[in-house]
Structures are given as structure tokens and as C-alpha cells.
């Protein structure tokens, strides 16, 4: 969730993205929590989360 919105801060002003995250962030968190229950393979779940997080983090990490 954090990494996804972090990625968005490269498109829109960061304070606007954070404000929007008030709504989208919590819903996304709830959906991610549900996903954890839906995914049958535990290892696949962990890998998906890590890969997605890293993918969205890329612009931030490259800019460091």
C-alpha cells in the first residue's frame, strides 16, 4: 500500500497523494488482508507481496 502510493508521488504532488491515500490506502489495506486469506499457496502470496512492493518502490529506490 505504502509503496504503491509512493510510486504515485512521482506522478502527482506528494501531499495530494497522501491525502488521497486517506481513502484509497485503508481500502487497499483491507483488500490486501483479504487476499492473504484467498491465496491458497503461502509461498506464492509472500512472493507476490514482496515483488509488488519492490516493483512500486523502484522509482523511489532509484532516486535515493
Amino acid at each position: 500500500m505504502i509503496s504503491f502510493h509512493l510510486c504515485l508521488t512521482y506522478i502527482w504532488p506528494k501531499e495530494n497523494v497522501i491525502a488521497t491515500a486517506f481513502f484509497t490506502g485503508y481500502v487497499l489495506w483491507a483488500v490486501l488482508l483479504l487476499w492473504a486469506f484467498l491465496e491458497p499457496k503461502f509461498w506464492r502470496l509472500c512472493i507476490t507481496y514482496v515483488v509488488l512492493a519492490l516493483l512500486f518502490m523502484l522509482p523511489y529506490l532509484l532516486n535515493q
Partner: protein
Amino acid sequence: MNQRRYNIYFHTHTISGIIIAVLLYVIFFAGTLSFFKDDISAWQKGKSVVATDYSQDYNYLIDSLGSKYNLRGRNFDFFLLKQGHGTYVNMSTSQDTTISKPKPKAEGQQGRGRRGRDDGDSAYFLHFFTDKTQSSYAEGYDMGEFLYRLHFLAQLNQVPMPIRLGAPFGYLLAGIVSFLFLFALITGLLLHWDKIKSNFFLFRPWSKWKTVWTDMHTVLGIIGFPFQLVFAITGVVLIVNLFIISPFSKLLYDGEDAKLYQDLQYNREMKVDYIYRPLDKTVDFNAFVADWQQQWNGSKISRLYIRNYMDESMEVIIESKPDSRLNFAGSGYARVQMKDGKVLETKSPNYDTNHIDRVKSLVYHLHFGDFGGRPLRIVFFLLGLTGCVVILSGIMIWLVARDKPNIPVYKRRFNFWAANVFLAICLAMLPVTAFTLIMVKMLNKVDQSVIYSVYFYSWLVLSVYLVVLRNLTRINKHTLLLSVVLCFLVPLANGLSTGQWLWNTFAVRAYDIFFIDLLFMMFGLGCAFAYYKVKKDGKAFKVSV
């Protein structure tokens, strides 16, 4: 929908739901009454706000402070109440060190937050413009404030915690409940997904109990879904937003929270250097405020800050909220140097709306229901009660679904015990609230601790009594009967103690006081009707333990 997914939604919904059930009910019930917070306050004080003409007399307020303190060089923050009939005043010590005489701070004297701080020279209190009286926070505490704070479990903050949680315990708990509520809403919607259309209005009140509760739960849950989703999300945002703020502040602001809060327009930089040169003119704050209000088409002033009073560097900062009929989202702001009246910064509440204004206004307006007057609040109130019904029927489904021969007896005993306790606590709330409202009218001195004792002890006693009954039908009947009596006593207590009978308050257009009396009469009538129906037609309900 395949069976596996259905089971997952079913179990996640059940577990998250039953865990938060009681706390969520408390939040819903207290919260839905808090739509009428201002009315309850006016009712308790016996002073109608809507029927009173008043002006926001800042000059008087400052003059009266001036007779007690030397005001030169002080900072003032005025946080106005929503209706504008009063304001919290925070007065700092003077920036002028020849007046404030800073003394070394004693160990352990660090205040606990903003409230109740008083080191002799600064002050924090509540001032009413209506009758020009002042009171401390604890004295001004009333049932409106109590219910409002109960709905985010603020009273639990005082529970001592063995470890540091990073947030007050009550708020944190309310936040977690709110988030689980959001989760339960999403799973509940998906669970019911295939039947949304076919069962949209499906009520079968003459069927067996389990069907009745299921219909109540699913149909009212779906109809109220948008409303509840809005409150789940805005609720989390309002109570534990630091979960979103702090990671972003670490990543994007190098941990400088202050900078982030400033970007999100929660705080503003207001540091003004003191220059030890007296300002040689008088300042008329009433005219100042009126002037800005006129410029902003009568928008409501929400905050007023005075920096370095009567120093040449004196600045006044004014913040306002637009009239929701003119502009739904927006915030006004002006910073003025008093020496020459130069406007340093300004932002109109009606035109210069930015994205952050829109998000924040959406959160506040939707959660407080303050953009459509009393009719809208009544609709929100009813939808809130629907939420209460959904929670209660959820508990009942949870119980009867587990009341089968193939479930071991010890598990069934536990389930019944849980449902028994949950229902007792939940259903006791209405009579206890009515009882406390009666007591605040009957007792001579009412402040924060009195309200706490009356409400929480009567709640405890009644809950224990209902738990001991060990019979859900009787719990229901007893609370209904008690609610009928106590709710009708509410307007009676008001009339007897203050003479403000319904017809009197209606005649003088004191609709806020009138409304609370009427509301509790409606509650009483509703409970009487329900009691009559349960007694006459109620089918026997029994679980097998």
C-alpha cells in the same frame, strides 16, 4: 462463486464481525446520538443556542482577560465551537520576558496533552458568547461531549497500559475496530454478492427466527452498505491516521512530521519574532472578524490566532470554513500584520479550493453529517440505528447458526454465554443513556466525574443483571420495558427541573431542546410498540443449552 471462496468470505466475515461486535455497537450507538451533540448539550444546560441571539464579542473576552492578566506579548488561540456560540481559549505566557519571567521548568511538570494545562500564568478554558460565562473543560463537560467521546472510546485512554502503544489506548482500539469493520464490510458484501439483486428487499418477518435475523442482517446491511462504508473509512481516517501519516513522513519528509502536517494544512507556521516595541494603536477584533466574514460571503470562522499581542510585530491569523451551501469543500485563511493592516497571506474559502481541502472536507462533512441541516442528520441518525440492528442480528445469527446437535455441548455453552453477555451490554445502552440524562437533570452539580460515575456504574449494574437472567427473550423484554419508562421520563425530568416543557420550548423556538425531548419520546414510543408486539406475537425462542 465457487465454494472455497464463499467459505473464506463467510469465515473471515464471521470472525472479524463477532470480535468487534460489542465495541462496534457502542461506537454506532453513541456515534449516532452524537449527530445531536449540540442539541444534547443545549438540552442539558437548559440554554437553547438556536433560540438565542448572540454576537461573537472578542473585544469583551479580551478586555475581561486583561483585567486579570497583563496581556502584552501573549499568544491567543481561539478554537470556536461548531455552532459558533462559544470558543475554547488557549492563552500562552507572554513572549515578553520582562512580563512572563520564565522560571526553570520543574521536573515532571510536563502537561498531559493540551487539556488541563495550567502553570498559573497561561490559561485554557471554554468561553460562551451566548451568556459571556467561562468554565474549565471538566466543568463544561456534558452528555453531548460524553457520548461524542464515547463513540471513539476516549474514556478508555485512562486505562493504564503496561507498554507504550504509540497512541492512546482508546483511540487505538477504536481505530482497530473501525478497520476490522471495513474488512467485515468488504467480506460481507462479497459473501452476499450473488444474492444482492434477488434478495434486495427480501424481508420475511413471519418466518422462523433465524430467517428473520438473516434478512435483517443481510438486507439492512446491503441497503446501509454505502453509508457504513463511508463511516468505516472516514472513522479510521479521523482516529488513527498516523498509520498512514508516519510511514509517508519517514519516507518522503525524512521524519519531519511538522512539515508534513503543514503540507496537509493541519498546522501552519505561525512563529513571529517578538521585538519589544509596543504597538501604538487599538485593535478592534470584532470589526476585524466581521470584515473578513463579509469578504468571504459570511463563511464561518473556525479559528482565530493572535500572536504577540500589542507588540509592533503583532499578527492575527484567521481560519474559516465555507458555508456548505456555497461551497462544499474549502478552507479560508488569512494572515494579517496588525501594525499596518497588511495582508501577508490569504486564501478564500469559496474559490481557492485545492485537492487537500476536498479530501478533508469530504472526510469531515460525511462523518459529521453537517452539510444538510437537521433533516440530513436525522437521516444519518436512522441509518446509524440501522447499523446497530445489523450488529445485533449478526450476533443472533452467529448464535443460532452454531446451535446444532453436531456441535459439542461445551462449545454451545460458550457460544450462548458470549451472545448473552454481548446482548446484555449492547441492549443496556439505551436505558442507561436515558437514565443518565434524567440524572443530570436531577443532580445539583454535574461535571465530568459525575457523568462518568452515573453512566458507567449504571451500565455495569444493568448489564450484570441482564447477564444473570440467562434468557435472551427476557433480556429483550426487560430492556424494552425499562427503555419505555426511562425514555418517557427524560422530557418529564427536563420539564420538572427547569420548567422547559415541550410546548414551552416549541413556543420560544428552542428547537434544540425541544428536539431531544421529542427524540426520547419517539424512542419511548418505539420501545413500547416493540414491547407490545413481542408480548403479543413473539414466537418462543430458545437455544438448546
